[in-house]
């Protein structure tokens, strides 16, 4: 980025809501974690209402409003108690009614904000509005003809519009990641970007540094991966700078992004912009949202990422980086929380235990995940495994190396820690009668080293520990060995 210019970025995010049924009819909006309505037989998930048959009428799914309110509350928005659905009129073959039912001048939520951490900098991005709408169908263009699939027509969407509060592509990326993790934590969306559950339009303009006059903006449409979004914005900023430098000036237009060329291209100009002729949909009455309903939803909100991070750090004593790593996956952090919950039942020192458990999860468990290329939830590992394991290690009945072995077996088989330990004979050797002869052997076998140690070369203690460990196949407790050897060698 050029230092002469600064960029102004605002984002519009479309997020498919994971309600059971569509927004205005009883067709399915979501099938399962594995299958989306877009992937089943073409046009099989339709009814006269979402197919826009003449004479049919929409009836609002209240769950959609509830999900919208959840996002609104989590982003500190004001909830409009009487939002109005409006018709956005335009012609396109995958829009069965010739208009999209959306919200216009009276959206569900307004004036919120989201705290975005981008590296060491944190910034408040203001949310202008959040509104509810229906998704259109999907056009498939072939040579000489196009096909329309209405399976997803009528799937509920929320559109979250930010104020132009971001300045760099990285900041925009961080905002999106924060918002994405928020909707996943709120359990209102599957947030699957490949499936188009979560897609984004970016409004980008540049202006000379220190200027108060905003530049002419362009809108980049339909970005559906964090990486492409950052790259597209980055490209668009440099393109605009170049255009301004060359004296031509930016044209207000809508642009597309070609990921293979990493460039944006013009789609339509302001003159070609649609006049959507918005007006309140006479088929739907204004929605009535009373404060009781809002409060009920507020109380049902789960712990959000920000709150989770704060708790992991302040209550459980984790480092910022460990907390961030755990939070990056909703399943991982919930698994971790379950571990901590269960440990409370058996009485442990909370912070000490939590740090150790986090270590195991972020090192060994993550390694196994990578190695087997499966997700944590697909493995046999359960929270009680980690609890038992950490306790055994802390009681020094299991060495680090042994514990790794146990996790690996539990990950694959789901067996109890105690039965794995028995079966594999993994008791840590803390028994002096077993260790004494081994230590004596080592002292006898390495007389030169013994002499050197006695002459003051303390570092050699590690050497002796290592030798004994080797003889126990790693089943002894190194600190204990160190203590014993030091006495013996005095």
């Amino acid at each position, binding site marked *: 980025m050029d230092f002469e210019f600064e960029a102004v970025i605002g984002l519009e995010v479309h997020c498919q809501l994971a309600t059971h049924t569509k927004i205005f009819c009883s067709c399915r909006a979501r099938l399962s974690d594995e299958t989306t309505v877009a992937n089943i037989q073409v046009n099989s998930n339709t009814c006269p209402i979402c197919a826009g048959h003449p*004479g049919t009428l929409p009836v609002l799914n209240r769950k959609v409003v509830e999900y919208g309110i959840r996002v609104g509350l989590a982003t500190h928005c004001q909830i409009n108690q009487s939002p109005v659905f409006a*018709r956005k009129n335009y012609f396109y073959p995958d829009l069965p009614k*010739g208009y999209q039912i959306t919200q216009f001048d009276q959206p569900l939520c307004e004036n919120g904000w989201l705290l975005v951490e981008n590296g060491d900098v944190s910034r408040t991005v203001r949310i202008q509005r959040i509104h509810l709408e229906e998704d259109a169908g999907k056009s498939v263009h072939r040579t000489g003809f196009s096909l329309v699939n209405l399976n997803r027509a009528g799937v509920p969407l929320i559109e979250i519009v930010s104020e132009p509060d971001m300045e760099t592509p990285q900041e925009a990326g961080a905002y999106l990641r924060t918002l994405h993790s928020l909707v996943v934590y709120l359990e209102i969306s599957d947030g699957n970007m490949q499936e188009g559950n979560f897609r984004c339009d970016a409004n980008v303009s540049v202006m000379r540094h220190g200027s108060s006059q905003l530049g002419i903006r362009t809108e980049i449409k339909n970005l559906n991966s964090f990486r492409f979004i950052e790259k597209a914005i980055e490209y668009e900023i440099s393109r605009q700078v170049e255009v301004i430098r060359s004296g031509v000036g930016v044209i207000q237009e809508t642009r597309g992004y070609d990921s293979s060329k990493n460039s944006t291209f013009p789609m339509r100009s302001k003159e070609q912009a649609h006049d959507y002729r918005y007006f309140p949909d006479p088929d739907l009455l204004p929605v009535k949202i009373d404060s009781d309903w809002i409060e009920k939803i507020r109380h049902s909100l789960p712990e959000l990422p920000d709150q989770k991070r704060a708790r992991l750090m302040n209550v459980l004593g984790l480092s910022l980086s460990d907390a961030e790593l755990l939070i990056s996956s909703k399943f991982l952090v919930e698994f971790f929380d379950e571990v901590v919950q269960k440990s409370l039942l058996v009485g442990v020192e909370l912070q000490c235990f939590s740090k150790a458990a986090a270590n195991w999860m972020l090192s060994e468990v993550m390694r196994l995940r990578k190695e087997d290329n499966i997700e944590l939830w697909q493995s046999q590992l359960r929270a009680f495994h980690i609890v038992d394991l950490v306790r055994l290690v802390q009681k020094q009945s299991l060495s680090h190396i042994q514990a790794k072995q146990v996790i690996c077996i539990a990950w694959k088989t789901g067996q109890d820690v105690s039965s794995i330990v028995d079966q594999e004979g993994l008791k840590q050797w803390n028994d002096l009668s077993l260790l004494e002869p081994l230590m004596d052997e080592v002292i006898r076998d390495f007389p030169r080293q013994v002499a050197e140690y006695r002459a003051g070369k303390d570092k050699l203690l590690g050497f002796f520990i290592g030798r004994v460990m080797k003889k126990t196949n790693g089943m002894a407790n190194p600190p204990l060995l160190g203590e014993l050897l030091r006495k013996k060698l005095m």
Partner: protein
Amino acid sequence: MRTIRQIHEALEKKKISVVELTRDYLNSAQKSKNGEYITFCEERALQQAQEADDLLRLEKKVPWAQKPLFGIPIGLKDNLTLDGVRTTCGSKILDHYIPPYTASAVERLESAGAVILGKLNMDEFGMGGSNENSAFGPVGHPTHSDRVPGGSSGGSAAAVRANLCVASLGSDTGGSIRLPASYCGVVGIKPTYGRISRYGLIAFASSLDQIGPLARTVEDAARLLDVLSGYDPLDSTSSNIPPLQAYLASQSVPHWNRLRFGLPQEYFSGGLSLEIEKSIQNAMQWLESQGAQLVPLSLPSSQYAVAVYYLIAACEASSNLARMDGVRFGVRSQEAAETTDLTEFYQKIRSDFGREVKRRIILGTFALSLGYSDAYYKKACQVRRKIKLDFDLAFQKVDFIIGPVSSTTAYRRGEKAIDPLKMYLNDIFTVPANLAGLPAMSLPCGEDQEGLPIGLHLLAPPFCEEQMISVAQAFSKRGEGSVRGF
């Protein structure tokens, strides 16, 4: 044997079977040269009739309580969907449209035992007042063939009058039930907005459309109302209140000396034909003679009603009719199918609308467009609220409002077709009820010198159909001495 009561008596006495009755009606309807029907569903109707006869043989009696319309042949305006039966809205664009579902109101008729004969002619998408704007040809007036039957439910009114069905369903967006009812001399009711589910009524203007019955007698119309009314979870604008008991109300005598009838001065100031004025005055005298009180009043905002109506209705229509784009609905001509440009494709498809429909789509599109919507659409919505307020105030002083339905009786074919504005102004008495969502009806109250029917317009406060029916029934029996209860 032309009313529901008479038919039920004949069925019980085995003077006729439902199949015979259905055949009779179908035969005369199919023979008619007046164009009342667009589509017959003969097979379906005869099957329904056969099932009814089987049931009757088993039960020996007409199952009244469960099926108040048992075996009654009924016609549907062709903008109401019936699963598997072509539904055209009087438009070339829906020539081949076969809906995969049945309108809620029609479902209610069928479960009440009605036999559906077919789909009745109408002005294209309900746009017109003479039934001359149909892609399937005009409908002739049932008694004066050079006249129009009124519209847009022209087929519904003419078929009832000509005994081509016992009763029919129409829809009323700005007078489309009441105007043809008055021209044809039958009873036509537009209920309160929200009283009858609109699910399956192909929309013209969603905030104004309402389904209603047309019948030969007030009693029969009341029986249909009872069946049609009630909450429908498929229509968000349907009111969550119990169904009407309008038939029961038709059997009770109004408390005349407690009733006040409002006469809006605006409805009687010029333009009204002398014969109609006289007819209405006779009606007023009769009401007064029963002990009712006549109260002159004013509805000052009603002078804007036609302008407001034609803006709001056109705006909503421009959006409602957008789905007729040739992708899924609308006939895709060879020429349109061959074009590769999407805009050109839409142009070709949408040229198939009739002139009046195109005119209103263009008007509505304009009035909603950026920079004009504040001055037209939004302003019209504001004035609409004032018109409703006028009625709210009026109904604090009176129980009903009466007036004419139209300033003339049925006019000659072609007389107004060339001048849309003249046609629009003809709606001046009927559109206010739609804008305010009020129940209103047209009730035969006389004939002019040429024997053309005159309709009395009765308007009531929201959800007061029962009271309105009680008064209408008494009025319709005025020649028969005193009206008694059961």
